[in-house]
């Protein structure tokens, strides 16, 4: 990767600088090659997946003769002739991690487990020929009655063994029910959060090409090691026979953590045909076949004294889950750390439905959970008549309220106060529905943000060649977050070179294994590995410099070595790094570095990033159309590695919050079990016109317990609580509290005043 930004000054700490994306020029000039765009030797064949027209049952007859006879068709694969794959296995894997690596067979049985599940693959000379042939495959189904609607099957709810990421299903502290029963002030409320889809710009796509018994797979993956294991386990070949390439990823948001049908089928078909095969899911197919956030019913109960001190917190979540593969989003887990209260309950329950499995969707847990919880806090503030920020300050815990360990850093109060000051929070009228401009109602709302910080085991390799060219390699991915850039900054800082001198190479399974992109841990994990690799390389360089005869540093003291301004300095002597390497190690040098998964520091401290969101909204008095007019997020997330890429991450999260609050919903038809609005014309995400001037402020902070940089994960933090701030602003504007997300105008309209003459409205 070469840097597009000319950077002259090299003698500085690049960490914390707003360095432009090193891959920016490649992307905006179309030179960044994405999975489906790769070329291989020899002509590629194109696959098209045909999905089931029912949601539960079996294929009773399938006739592919006509499709096979169509011009250009090379192969039609169904469960009848697909290569043998291992059985899918139980709904819950024995170990948490195995969910990422388990076999994911496709077309291996006649069973249909969800609507649009692959029932056939057509491979042809062109995409159009494949799609055309797929349409003439005749299929009969034995349709079984499935269960689709969460709310109709609540009686079947069960407690899973654990939540996603291995958290305990339930937590119980004190005696909530007693505290709640006795309390004069209480909120007892139920929120629902809908099915949502990630919809990254780049669809799930794969090009598979075999060479002997080895397959090279160009795909769009967030975590290569997991993908590789998943593919190897499904194809039943050794992992080292799978070479994965994922250099550029057009967004993942958690939908590219496990292999999907495009990858498995491309690999199977390419092996069958002895020819490279490309398959992409269509946008419509992504709704059924690439994961979703499940629908949830969330009960939030709060009890407090009249001053707003919480005496009890209960967050009970009931979520839909796939019958064949369990996924329990950790929706109430954040509530274990957010506010103090002596009596507490958090619980997760699941209802099995006949849909595809849910997957990790940006900010799993916090995204839906804080929508409900932070709105309930707003309800409590309104009921007691205290400012929502004051309410939160009054319940600021000294230590993690359920784990009883100290916070590593926690600046939630500072975030709220700084945000209030900058946003003009004092202008907020506590009484809802009282601010009007023309035919618009204006409201302000806020909510807190919290998101755990992680560190995952990762390794990196670094090399410097005889001409001083530095190359960093690791199987980390850049899913659009800026990983290439921050890794260049980290290596540049360590080696005393400009970021443009560092060639960062990612997304190749031949490189050392990392934790990948997921859980907002990428920067810390991959970054630490790169940092350690750099330190190891510097030691090697220093050692060689002192040991090689003819080196200007021959025999000098290794303890006083500095790498700065493109030079190495030992004692009072300095030398251009490239020249030195050329003299002392003309064949080049390389080194490895690694970091272990967070251990002691993670056990001994409660590690989270925090923030506070502020929203101003305008609601049309006649039509209830809601448009955010201003939004600010103040973030306390440790040291910020690159304020530019970090800001983009937070802004992206805020936009997700606007979407979740106002429009995003995949509607499941309870009769057929399919997502009705499965395209981007009808699954609404915010467009530019919905996103006003968003502002982000980072507080000065460094968390020494988090990682070597003092940074914390920020990729998901912006989403957490953002939607609740929007919904709270709507309440403040209108006095209407909608508890069924998204808050669309049809739900607000009945609560608006009736129109009367002279612009005044009667209630």
């Amino acid at each position, binding site marked *: 990767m070469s840097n597009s930004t000319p950077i002259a000054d090299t003698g500085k700490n690049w960490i914390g600088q707003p360095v432009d994306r090193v891959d920016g020029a490649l992307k905006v000039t179309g030179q960044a090659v994405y999975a489906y765009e790769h070329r291989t030797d020899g002509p590629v064949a194109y696959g098209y997946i045909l999905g089931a027209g029912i949601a539960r049952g079996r294929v009773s007859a399938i006739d592919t003769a006509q499709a096979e006879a169509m011009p250009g068709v090379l192969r039609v694969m169904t469960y009848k002739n697909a290569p043998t794959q291992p059985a899918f296995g139980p709904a819950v894997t024995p170990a948490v991690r195995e969910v990422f690596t388990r076999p994911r067979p496709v077309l291996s049985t006649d069973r249909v487990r969800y609507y649009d599940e692959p029932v056939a693959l057509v491979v042809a000379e062109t995409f159009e020929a494949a799609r055309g042939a797929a349409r003439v495959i005749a299929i009969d189904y034995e349709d079984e009655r499935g269960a689709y609607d969460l709310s109709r099957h609540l009686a079947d709810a069960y407690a899973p063994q654990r939540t996603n990421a291995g958290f305990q299903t339930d937590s119980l502290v004190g005696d909530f029910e007693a505290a709640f029963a006795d309390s004069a002030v209480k909120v007892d409320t139920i929120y629902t959060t809908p099915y949502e889809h990630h919809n990254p710009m780049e669809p799930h796509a794969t090009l598979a090409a075999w060479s002997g018994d080895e397959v090279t797979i160009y795909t769009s993956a967030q975590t290569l090691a997991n993908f590789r294991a998943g593919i190897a386990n499904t194809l039943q070949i050794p992992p080292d026979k799978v070479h994965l390439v994922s250099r550029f990823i057009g967004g993942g948001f958690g939908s590219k953590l496990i292999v999907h049908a495009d990858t498995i089928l491309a690999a199977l078909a390419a092996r069958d045909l002895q020819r490279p095969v490309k398959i992409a899911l269509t946008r419509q197919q992504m709704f059924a076949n690439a994961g979703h956030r499940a629908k949830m019913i969330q009960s939030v109960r709060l009890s407090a004294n009249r001053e707003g001190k919480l005496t009890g917190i209960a967050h009970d979540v009931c979520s839909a889950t796939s019958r064949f593969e369990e996924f329990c989003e950790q929706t109430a887990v954040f509530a274990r750390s957010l506010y103090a209260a002596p009596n507490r309950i958090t619980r997760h329950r699941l209802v099995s439905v006949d849909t595809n499995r849910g997957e990790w969707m940006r900010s799993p847990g916090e995204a839906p959970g804080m929508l409900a919880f932070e709105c309930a806090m707003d309800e409590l503030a309104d009921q007691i008549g205290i400012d929502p920020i004051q309410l939160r300050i009054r319940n600021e815990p000294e230590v993690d309220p359920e784990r009883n360990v100290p916070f590593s850093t926690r600046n939630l109060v500072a975030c709220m106060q700084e945000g209030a000051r900058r946003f003009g929070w004092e202008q907020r009228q506590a009484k809802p529905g009282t601010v009007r401009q023309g035919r618009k109602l204006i409201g302000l709302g806020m909510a807190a943000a919290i998101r755990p910080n992680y560190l995952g085991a990762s390794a990196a390799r670094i090399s410097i060649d005889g001409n001083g060219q530095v190359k960093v390699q690791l199987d980390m991915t850049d899913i659009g977050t800026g990983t290439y850039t921050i890794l260049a900054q980290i290596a540049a800082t360590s080696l005393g070179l400009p970021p443009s001198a560092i060639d960062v190479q990612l997304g190749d399974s031949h490189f050392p294994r990392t934790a990948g992109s997921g859980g907002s841990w990428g920067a810390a994990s991959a970054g630490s590995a790169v940092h350690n690799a750099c330190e190891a390389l510097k030691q090697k360089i220093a050692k060689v410099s002192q040991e090689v005869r003819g080196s200007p540093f021959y025999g000098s003291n290794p303890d006083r070595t500095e790498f700065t301004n493109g030079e190495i300095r030992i004692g009072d002597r300095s030398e251009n790094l490239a020249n030195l390497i050329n003299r002392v190690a003309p064949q080049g040098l390389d080194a490895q570095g690694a970091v272990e998964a967070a251990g002691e520091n993670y056990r001994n401290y409660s590690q989270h990033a925090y923030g506070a969101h502020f929203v101003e909204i305008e609601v049309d008095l006649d039509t209830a159309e809601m448009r955010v007019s201003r939004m600010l997020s103040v973030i306390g997330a440790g040291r910020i590695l690159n304020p530019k890429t970090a800001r983009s991450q937070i802004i992206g999260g805020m936009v997700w919050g606007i979407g979740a609050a*106002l429009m995003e919903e995949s509607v499941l038809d309870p009769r057929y079990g399919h997502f009705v609005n499965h395209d981007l014309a009808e699954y609404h995400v915010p467009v530019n016109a919905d996103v006003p001037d968003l502002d982000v402020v980072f507080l000065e902070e460094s968390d020494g317990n988090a990682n070597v940089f003092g940074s914390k994960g920020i990729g998901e933090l912006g989403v957490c609580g953002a939607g609740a701030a929007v919904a709270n602003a709507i309440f403040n504007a209108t006095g209407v509290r909608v508890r069924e997300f998204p808050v669309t105008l049809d739900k607000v309209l009945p609560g608006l005043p009736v129109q009367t*003459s002279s612009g005044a409205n009667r209630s």
Partner: protein
Amino acid sequence: MKPFTYQRAGELRDAMAGVAGTPNAKFISGGTNLLDLMKLEIERPAHLIDINHLPFNGIEETAEGGLRIGAQVRNSTLAADSRIRSNYPVLAQALLAGASAQIRNKASTGGNLLQRTRCYYFYDRNMPCNKRKPGSGCAALHGFNRMHAVLGSSDACIAVHPSDMAVAMLVLDASVETMDTEGVTRQIPVGDLHRLPGSTPDVETQLKLGEMITAVILPPGQPGRQLYRKVRDRASYAFALVSVAAIVHVAGDTIAGARFALGGVAAKPWRVPEAEAILLGEKVSTEMFERAADIALANAVGRGGNDFKIPLAKRTIQQALAAASQRG
């Protein structure tokens, strides 16, 4: 996609010969609707006649003082035309409220009028849909029908026509000029172009097989203030939940003329003359607008998910009429 043949028509008679001589032929203009439907095999033409190169891309003044808009005029061109902007601002506003800039650059005047419904079930070939497959049933009727019609629908189909442009054309009393395969031309008022579903929702317009829209005729501009109000789920790039095209002419303190049309509520742009008539000669007042709105929606029937459209349409009518009757 089903294989098809393609013909680029240089002259009108080539196009007409093509459509007359090939079974299951279709015109393609901007293709922004037709191609999407072909990819999903909801439309399966055997032959495509590209009419983009026919000489129908001009906007000319008519002898009556109106405008004749060629069927190939792009939505973006039409919205930017200075005569449209000054004399028919409701039309410019409606066009700009539709789709995205990229789609408007491709979309033609004729294609916009003949675009098909966005009903989710129509788009999914696994679902029953009388419009796509006559006799198969209507999945929307008891399904997710938030976007569907509250006026003029039947149990066979409750789809809405999604065009914004057509709503403005209706309030402007525009007519569609067509030519059939025999070369016969006729004019159809925009309000009569689309048919209500009845028991044959698959038959959507009055056009005969192979009949081409060649132009849209606008009568001379109306006195009064014009506006297009589109209510939607996001600020841009969403179809109307409800829209109102309104023209109100206030002389002194009384209403000398008032007309309004609704979008997003029926299988065609909707206008209720009785609702307009009661406003004539009245003073501007919320009560009068409320009465007009009530009359306009008097026959409305909700289907569950779209019940909100009835009060929403009324409130939007009132807002639009009030705004259009303001001076300045």
